[in-house]
């Protein structure tokens, strides 16, 4: 028997109302002192990635946000009771620190697409036809390095712009930028106070008007999926991998 884990939370003794879980299973609470895990008891060894299951996972996580801010688990987290117990006991401090960080907060996401018009000469080489494989490889490598450098610069610029527009609303931020020769894709994840969702939307709406050359999509509020993974912090803060 295994447990399918939806999220970890603090101070949850009972579920007021929970939707059905993945594959139509019922959702239960497993307590570890003051920490709780929302789980379904499962016999299968794996869950199919279907629209229905993915949405069911999200709906269960979403349902608990009315009571508290949880740390959502990634889809497909299937463990034995013993494994979950071990995980919670060895990561207790990190889990509690993470829960404190997200308490009363929610996640908002901004996606941006900018189409690059014209050719950036720095990426191009004049006579690429007829080059030997070694030279072509090195040129490709050079393009990638230039693109990576440009992505880092974009990331800094974007972060500065978003901070200028959203200011104190941003409590935590994660930004990623990926570009090709024709398009720049950027994604910013923000952790904000739940009470600030409307302010966030209003300020983003104003900011969007200033940048007609970029296509934006703002979504949220979400449970803090992007801020839930404690593994990196755990190894850094506690020296345990």
């Amino acid at each position, binding site marked *: 028997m295994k447990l399918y884990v939806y999220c970890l939370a603090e101070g949850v003794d009972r579920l007021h109302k929970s939707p059905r879980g993945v594959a139509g299973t019922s959702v239960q609470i497993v307590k570890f002192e003051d920490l709780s895990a929302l789980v379904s008891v499962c016999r299968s060894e794996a*869950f199919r990635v279907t629209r229905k299951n993915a949405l069911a996972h999200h709906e269960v996580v979403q349902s608990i946000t009315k009571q508290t801010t949880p740390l959502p688990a990634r889809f497909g987290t299937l463990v034995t009771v013993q*494994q979950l117990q071990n995980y919670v006991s060895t990561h207790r401090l990190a889990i509690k620190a993470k829960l404190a960080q997200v308490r009363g907060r929610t996640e908002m996401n901004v996606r941006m697409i900018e189409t690059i018009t014209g050719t950036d000469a720095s990426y191009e080489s004049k006579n690429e036809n007829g080059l030997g494989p070694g030279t072509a490889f090195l040129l490709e490598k050079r393009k990638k390095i230039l693109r990576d450098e440009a992505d880092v610069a974009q990331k800094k610029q974007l972060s500065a712009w978003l901070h200028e527009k959203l200011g104190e609303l941003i409590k935590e931020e994660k930004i990623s930028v990926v570009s090709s020769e024709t398009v720049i894709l950027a994604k910013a994840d923000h952790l904000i106070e739940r009470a600030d969702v409307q302010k966030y939307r209003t300020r983003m709406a104003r900011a969007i008007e200033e940048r007609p050359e970029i296509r934006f*999509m703002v979504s949220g509020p*979400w449970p803090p999926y992007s801020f839930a993974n404690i593994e990196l912090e755990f190894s850094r803060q506690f020296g345990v991998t």
Partner: protein
Amino acid sequence: MSDFDQILVGEEWENTDLSLLETLDHVLNRGLVIAGEITIAVADIDLIFVGLNVMVSSVETAQEVLRKRQMTE
């Protein structure tokens, strides 16, 4: 779906599809990883593809939607 359906955009997008993609992105690509115990099974290829490449997929879907809208205007 839930209240994340409230999507604010520079232009009007097809909210239902994008909400689903956004949900898949969050559920499949983010969240707490407990001891590497992620077990999923292939159900249909497009969703797996979306799961692995959701950022690009979302953007491509979005661009496609915008292109179609512009063509019909």
